[in-house]
């Protein structure tokens, strides 16, 4: 007779992280997303502060799961809320290193061009309208699926595909300039 085999390992109940855990362990992730969305450190820092406030409120109803997905959603929506608020009187954020931008003519040196590409891409990302920038960052920088992005942004998946396609097309045009 074959003994009945049972898995006696009890599954640990899902644990809701504390606000401190989130801020300390995932603050870097939030910051990175915030920087990719805003394009400069000053706005990224403001956005992180806003996100941490929202996290504080959201943890009360958070269901343990994909924590970074949840944080990316909060960060993106906080970014879009901020841009909507400021839309009535647009402001232009200064770059973190104005000298580098003013002197930023393309280098003839291929190695230098390669090294500067992320900064250049970040500037071009910043030129995209927020409604294109957010899904492009979520898809191409953070690697979320179209379904996840549609869920994060609360828009139909067709809209997500369209915005990502148009956002990439604008980046392609800008890179070709």
């Amino acid at each position, binding site marked *: 007779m074959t003994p009945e085999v049972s898995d006696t390992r009890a599954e640990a109940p899902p644990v809701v992280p504390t606000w401190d855990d989130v*801020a300390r362990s995932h603050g870097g992730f939030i910051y990175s997303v915030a920087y990719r969305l805003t394009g400069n450190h000053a706005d990224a820092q403001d956005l992180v502060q806003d996100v941490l406030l929202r996290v504080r409120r959201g943890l009360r109803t958070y269901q343990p799961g994909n924590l970074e997905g949840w944080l990316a959603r909060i960060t993106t929506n906080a970014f879009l809320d901020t841009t909507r608020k400021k839309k009535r009187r647009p402001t232009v954020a200064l770059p973190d290193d104005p000298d580098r931008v003013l002197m930023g003519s393309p280098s003839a040196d291929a190695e230098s061009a390669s090294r500067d590409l992320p900064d250049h891409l970040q500037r071009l990302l910043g030129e995209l309208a927020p409604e294109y920038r957010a899904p492009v960052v979520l898809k191409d920088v953070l690697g979320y*699926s179209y379904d996840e992005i549609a869920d994060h942004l609360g828009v139909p998946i067709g809209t997500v595909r369209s915005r990502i396609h148009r956002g990439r097309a604008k980046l392609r045009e800008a890179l070709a300039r």
Partner: protein
Amino acid sequence: MIDHHEEPWEAEISSLLGAMGSVEPPEGFLDRAVDRRPAAAGRAVGALLFAVVALAAVGVATGLTGTARSISPDFTALETRHRAVDPTSSGVVDDPRGDLPPGVPEGFVLVDRLDDGAWDHEVVARAGGAASVFRQAGTLDVAELGAAGERRTIGSTDVWVTHADVVMFEHEDEVFVVVGLEVDELVEPAPSSVTDRVGGFVGDLTRELGFPS
């Protein structure tokens, strides 16, 4: 991840973006963010709201302020925020409740109010240019200011002036950072009425508890 519907050039753009990597926050930023943690909200919201409003009224009446967050303003970042304001595009502020922020002299008008994350950002302007007043609930962490400037007074109010003429002061449980105005131009912040203070406190509380303001 490459999607089957994507064209080759899209995959190339996607690949370039995917290779950008993560961005580290400035050293100490997250520690400061954790130190300035938002106050916890109560669970019995309705009862708590009533109780705290009552306490607030008592606190205001008796001058009790409770424990306040200690704030060390990143005045360089706030200067950047100020420089990003284009006063030529400012119109009259939509919200007619807006009086001039404390310390700002007559002759200025409030032209805009922005939500800059943790800071409320008010833009004031006159013919000669614009200034920004940032405000946040808390107390000024004087120790952290270090040698960044010097202590001065406006009337009986202590202010701290950085070498770049950014002026910081406390007024009625809030920290103010003024950019674009020299300290000699500022006037002593006038105390607001008890009604205004209770109203402001309730507004802050309802925002913290998640109610629409």
